[in-house]
């Protein structure tokens, strides 16, 4: 065997800068067709809700407007989604309906997520008795059927958007508590937690400055997936007459009243139903895309 010695290889390192993790995540996201489609769908729903007065062909249809000349019109150039039993334009009502749905999402998640996350952080970080109390309380809340809870609340209070929101919020935080609890438990064995303790950091610092940043990607994926389910649950409540009341345009209520005219005037239930499907599908595709992009398990 002849000895082999090659001349010294040039030490020029990879001069081109490597991608940052954000660039890599963006690469993964944009190469994932369903994620991009989901993002476009969610964006269209949000924009439609924000610019409802400009976009809707007949803004007055959102209120208690009556136009018996045009009742039960099938979808056409003038009325894209048809008209309902009092002649209101369903397309306009759907756009306004997204406003109600999205405000429900913001209201519910705006309260449930911070509450659930803080409880999860505390349960995971403090362990022992705190953990036991918080997690068993969470288990109890998880055992309550959501619809029964909503029925109970609206029976005590009155059916309205705010009360529907309260009912959903009261049960929704549990999922975030469990998610964060699990992540924090896994992070607690990492040395950086002990390093922070040795550095003399306070409990609040470790929970909110050290642990929380490591939960952010999981929370954002969860929120995106949640949004679709909150819309669905809100629509279910309205369909059952426990949520938003007429004439406020709500997708669930529209499906409910439209279903009285099935199958003859099918568009009256079908179009709002498809609108619900569209929004939920968008949020779910986006959530799945984010999950792949940030490489987290939810």
């Amino acid at each position: 065997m002849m000895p082999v010695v090659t001349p010294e290889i040039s030490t020029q390192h990879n001069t081109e800068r490597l991608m940052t993790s954000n660039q890599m995540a963006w690469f993964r996201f944009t190469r994932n067709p369903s994620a991009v489609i989901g993002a476009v769908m969610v964006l269209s729903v949000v924009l439609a809700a924000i610019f409802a007065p400009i976009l809707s062909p007949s803004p007055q249809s959102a209120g208690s407007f009556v136009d018996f000349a045009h009742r039960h019109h099938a979808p056409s150039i003038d009325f894209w989604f048809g008209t309902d039993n009092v002649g209101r334009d369903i397309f306009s009502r759907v756009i306004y309906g997204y406003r109600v749905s999205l405000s429900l999402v913001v209201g519910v998640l705006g309260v449930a997520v911070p509450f659930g996350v803080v409880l999860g952080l505390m349960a995971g970080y403090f362990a022992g008795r705190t953990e036991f109390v918080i997690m068993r309380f969470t288990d109890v809340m998880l055992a309550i059927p959501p619809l029964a809870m909503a029925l109970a609340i609206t029976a005590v209070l009155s059916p309205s958007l705010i009360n529907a929101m309260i009912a959903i919020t009261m049960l929704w935080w549990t999922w975030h508590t469990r998610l964060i609890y699990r992540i924090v438990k896994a992070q607690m064995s990492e040395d950086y937690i002990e390093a922070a303790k040795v550095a003399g950091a306070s409990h609040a610092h470790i929970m909110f400055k050290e642990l929380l940043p490591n939960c952010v990607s999981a929370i954002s994926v969860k929120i995106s997936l949640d949004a679709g389910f909150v819309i669905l649950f809100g629509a279910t409540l309205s369909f059952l007459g426990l949520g938003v009341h007429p004439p406020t345009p709500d997708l669930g209520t529209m499906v409910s009243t439209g279903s009285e005219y099935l199958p003859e005037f099918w568009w009256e239930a079908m179009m709002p139903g498809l609108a619900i499907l569209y929004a939920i599908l968008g949020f779910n595709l986006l959530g799945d895309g984010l999950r792949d992009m940030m490489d987290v398990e939810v």
Partner: protein
Amino acid sequence: MSTPILEVSSLNLSFTTYGRRAQVLHDVSLSVSKGERVALIGQSGSGKTVTMRAIIGTLPMPPANIESGSISFEGRDLLNLTKPERNRIKGTGISIVLQDPLLSFNPVLTIGRQMDDILRYAEIRLGQRQSASQRKALILKTLNKVQLPQGVQIFDAYPMMLSGGMRQRVLIAMALLNKPRLLIADEPGTALDVTTQKEILNLLNKLVKDEELSLLLITHDLGVVREISDRVYVMERGHIVEANTNEEIFSNPVHPYTQKLMACVPALYGERVREVKNDQPGRPKIQVAAITKDFTQRSGFFKRTWSSVRAVNSVNLEIESGDVFGIAGESGSGKTTLAKMLLGLHLPSSGQIKIDGRPINDFSDAKEFRKLIQIVYQNPGSSLNPKRTVTQQLAVPLTFTNHSKASIMTRTAELLEMVDLPPSYASMYPHELSGGQKQRVAIARALSVNPKILVLDEPTSALDVLIQNTVIDLLLKLRQELDLTYVFISHDLSLMRNFCNRVAIMFRGEICEQGLTRDVFANPKHAYTRALLSSIPVISEREERLKPKITTAERQAVLASSTALT
């Protein structure tokens, strides 16, 4: 020279990820003859594992892509074989011994079941059938070959019931089951303690001779290479830069990279050893008196019974100001528990620790204590928060010792300079830094509040040898500049020889020997210390001669008492 059993010629391989192509192997050629032991060495990231995976055919393609070259095994070009043909060679022609004996088993299946699966599937691929009892007989015979005579018990045991060394032996037995002609060993024994590793290397050497195997060894440990190879290939960033016989490589390395690798291995004996001295001894900094730590755990139904493990048993230590005090020992010897007690993270079950003459529980002011003693962890990947920037992490100890915003800013800049990092790194996240740079940040964080004592918990064991040296040099420089006392926890005795002025050897929770590093290494008294020192792989014949000599029986005795079959 006989015809090569494995021949890789001008292999070029690239990876395409995120739309960018990176060539990882450049014209790699190597060959292994029948009965020959060949080692492939290099730093992590040099391409040695990619080469190995290309040979056994487990690289995912894409992203990997073989651009040119060939790999032939016993005259057949592996790259042109169909998938079933290629699979038939796995295990029967080429077999592999995996690196990590802890992770390579399925924890819920018995060893026998897992070995039987390997045999059975190989038979299905080859179209032969043997009865279950024939297979069992073969498994027991193979276990015997790897010096596990109690084969029947091992056959029925679950992986967790075996010690690390036994699991490594079972892994070797698994690789031998189908009578391969070529054995590939990926970092054999590196996950094990040195005394056990030595046994495994001896076993591999014996097997290669007895079974007429060829061996391809993939490792970064030059000491291991010297003991277990006939020829060596040195790999640097995808190139084979030097290939020669074992004796030539070690006595006369030609390529600058090989020379650099050799120079980085800390010497155990001889003139390459760096003596570290304490210039002003005599001032006790840490006094540990008869300290014991029991870990108790409630178990059983209704948690009524208590079981207890003694991790540290009546340890006495005196560490003087300016010392680099090494605490050596194998995994599970209690050295990390001892370190955590010094930091006040665990309370001793009995005994007392005094720092600067004050008992540790006298420090009612936690801030004062934190300014006195800090720690650098083993793995900077875990000890730095992945979601916070370098500045944010350096600021934590300062924020909690009442520093103002402005003084934190100047101090973090100062700290980065102290550990030789450019100021632009302040806003980076840990994943943007290399392992060595991360460890520098961790050192800077520990130093931020000007502690007098640093506990170094294996600070270089997660790093490559080349990087390890720069970190050690930095630590020595900082010790001079800042007048620090180090407590250095490690299992790497060669490193300890070159970094510590005093050492204590821990064995099963007790300190079995302590003294000046020079004396302990020159004249080890305790049987365990002797076994440890004699097992360390070294890179020159001179050092080999200077190591204490012990017989196999003596080492077996030590092993038997340190790793019991549970």
